[in-house]
């Protein structure tokens, strides 16, 4: 009897080994990286989903503290951080050496020059990769839809950036940028939580104190945001503003911490946490005005096609209800005095991606990288080592007006 059980267990263990392991990169393929402010997406050329997501942070080699890649002090500091990070990605997640590999980096067009130059230096000089291609994230997002025109709004962790693309050409004069995103939502949640805890009259020993809220780690705030918060509709939001007594808030719940204490999360918080995206700031801007302001900037014949091809990408845009609310806000703003005489657009239309929004830019990069265009456009190792520059439009040595 016992031996039979043993036998079945060994058989079972064998069965656990699922086939196909893509850790070893084949000769022809390469690696697509999308290094976001919060999460980095990594995967191989021509695959339809990233191999994984990893936090864009790394242990500082000197101090041992975990630091975000984007908190760099200067180029040398960034160089050290990126070496650690790229090493982690390749040796831990891809189980291969980056030497003589093809790389695609999907980045925003607004990426600082020091960042892209340092990343190229790390990849070429330290890791000796074969070739490298930088792709603009807004542009390649269109590759996932098979269209040439679109207004791409990327709501990420620290900022929301918008760039219209018309017939495959980015309309740079109409780019918009606002520093709201997942991070501002999380800090808003923290303030709301603090208010809630403060407003409690009798302190409950099972609940958290104000100090606990202040020391709450970002991952817990992120978890509260992801598991319970949503973007409410415009009607419901107006009800909240009017303090309508008939308004029915969503259910409260208690979020347990490892310390045994619990965070009271109210229905009001769940419903209003994402309002930072739609509240007009001091310059009277929110994500809806970004779209309309950009449409004001583009030339007249572009307005309609762009308004009817809106792409929402980035992790924060996955929030339930965001797209619906944005459409409501856009329609309302269109009637307002600020845009009534400037824009004569009747409708807004959104695209649905064949992917999740948080890796759309990565997917576009993976599709682009699988084509022949990669070899034509990529910077080869020898070319980089000879003149040590990454071609950029503002660099006249590579971008002379051709006669």
């Amino acid at each position, binding site marked *: 009897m016992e031996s039979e059980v043993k036998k*079945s*267990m060994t*058989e*079972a263990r064998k*069965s*656990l*080994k*699922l*086939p196909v*392991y893509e*850790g*070893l990169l084949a000769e022809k393929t390469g690696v697509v990286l999308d290094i976001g402010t919060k*999460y980095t997406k990594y995967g191989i050329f*021509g695959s*339809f*989903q*990233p*191999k*994984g997501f990893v936090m864009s942070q790394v242990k500082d080699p*000197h101090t041992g503290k975990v630091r975000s890649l984007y908190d760099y002090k200067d180029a040398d500091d960034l160089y*050290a951080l990126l070496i650690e990070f790229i090493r982690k990605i390749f*040796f*831990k997640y891809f*189980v291969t*050496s980056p*030497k003589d590999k093809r790389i695609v980096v999907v980045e925003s067009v607004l990426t600082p020059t020091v960042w892209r130059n340092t990343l190229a230096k790390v990849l070429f*000089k*330290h890791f*000796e990769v074969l070739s490298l291609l930088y792709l603009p994230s807004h542009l390649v997002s269109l*590759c996932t*839809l*098979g*269209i*040439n025109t679109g207004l791409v709004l990327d709501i990420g962790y620290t900022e929301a950036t918008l760039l219209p693309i018309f017939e495959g050409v980015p309309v740079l004069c109409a780019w918009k940028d606002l520093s709201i995103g997942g991070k501002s939502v999380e800090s808003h949640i923290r303030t709301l939580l603090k208010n809630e805890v403060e407003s409690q009259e009798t302190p409950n020993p099972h609940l958290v104190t104000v100090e606990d809220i202040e020391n709450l780690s970002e991952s817990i705030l992120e978890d509260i945001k*992801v598991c*319970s918060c*949503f973007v409410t509709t415009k009607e419901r939001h107006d009800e909240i503003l009017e303090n309508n007594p008939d308004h*029915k808030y*969503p259910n409260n*719940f208690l979020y*347990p911490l*490892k310390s045994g204490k619990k965070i009271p999360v109210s229905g009001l918080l769940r*419903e209003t946490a994402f309002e930072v995206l739609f509240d007009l700031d001091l310059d009277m801007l929110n994500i809806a005005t970004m779209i309309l302001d950009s449409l004001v900037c583009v030339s007249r014949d572009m307005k309609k096609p762009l308004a*009817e091809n*809106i792409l929402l990408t980035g992790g924060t845009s996955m929030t339930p*209800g965001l797209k619906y609310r944005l459409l409501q806000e856009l329609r309302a703003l269109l009637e307002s005095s600020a845009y009534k005489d400037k824009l004569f657009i009747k409708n807004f*239309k*959104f695209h649905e991606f*064949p*992917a*999740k929004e948080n890796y759309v830019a990565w*997917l576009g990069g993976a*599709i682009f990288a*699988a*084509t*022949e*265009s990669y*070899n*034509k456009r990529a910077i080869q190792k020898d070319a980089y*080592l000879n003149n040590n520059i990454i071609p950029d439009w503002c660099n006249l040595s590579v971008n002379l007006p051709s006669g």
Partner: protein
Amino acid sequence: MAFLAQQEAVIIACTCGSLKPVCRTYFCRHCFVIRCGNCVSNEVDSIYCAFCLDNVTCEHSLSVRSHTVRETTPQPQQPPVSKHATPSNRAYYLACFFCRWTSRDSNIPDQKTASGSWPERSNTHSTRLNVLLDYYKSIGALEKSNINIDHQSYMKYLRKPTHLLEDQFGFSANVRKQKVELLKKKNLILTDPHSKITVEGSVPTDEIEPLSEDFITKEIDLLSIPKLEQRFNISDLQPDHVSQLMPYHKRLMVKQSQRCRECEHNVCKPEYNPSSIKFKIQLSGYFCIPEIRIISYTPLIAGQVSEITFKICNQFKESTTIKFKQLPPKNSEEDLSYYKTLKKEILLTDNLHKSTILMEEARIQEVTTTGQLDLPKCELVLPPRDDAADCDDLADNQNYNDDPKIVIWRKCNKVGVRMQITPNPDLTVGSMVKVGFLLNFTYTNTLSSTLENKQAPQIIPVDVKMFIDVGVLSDETEK
């Protein structure tokens, strides 16, 4: 032992400029320089599973389901399997003993055989994405073939009136051929209906689903909502309910080997077998560079002389002679030449293959010393390491002409050295006193003597920059 050596009180400067404790460095016995993790190239030797230490040469890996109960149980590493059997018709499914998940929960069909290959889940959008991929590939191919036609020469050809005169005078056969080729190519690419793939662009919509009422009316059940990490493990689905979680592949581990960038020899190479902890090649700096440890020091007072005792230990299997030198002044020519930039171009003898290796610049970490060490001028000879003599208390060979003021004791390959240290007078109480010096030791290259028979072993002097955190400055009044 490892802890003693890893303490960062005594650090050495690598050739590339990074500062590391001696056990974190390598010594390349071919170029005779110190290397560290920053200036060696890493290679993947073998891949293995971290849980079963299986050497994965075949293409498979284990799978786990990204299912954890919040905050309570750890993530199951290897879900054990139970067998569901009916007499006539046996079917198997996976079950986890930790969280009671079964493969039926995720709608994975039962398998006929226990070792049956479990189906791989494919992306739900793969048909559409494949169409897109083919479309962009065709555009890429088009672009590539366009490179072959020189666009400018084609335009020039059109602009010249010669092709208008063609009817009148005729072309030479050669030119006509060229022209036909050119036009054919151009037409083929631009108009050939067979080679052109079209794709239907995505259709935008203005009918967006309003927010589901469930968010407002339903209670939040934290146990049924997966965390972000769990969602990311299934990157194409990113489910928002635990019932949709799927098994995913376990990550494998690598055994790495390190290679000197300059001479491309291995400096560290473990054995391929994942369960082995031995090395085929291990050129750690710990075994070559004399090790320095602080034994004791008298209280450090700003501007006053104190005494410090070091233990210097030769871990190498050949004897070594050491000298102490002052550090060269900062950013002087001598100082910068110490950090050799790693760029080097090698012209092979046949002049056909030119390969550029090592293109990284030195990353110099600045160190400011806050004390002066009175360095002994004499040379010290350290005998080779001998594990047997270490245990022998009687072994006592005092045939070294040591200055008794400097060398206070000597045992086998270890020597106790006394020096005088003066912390800088402007140092505040409680701050770290850091001293630095250049240690010159001789490295005996046994490799050359064995290769080219009967040659005397080569003795190479090597310089190492050493920085020592002696201790904190104490208060004068406390004494």
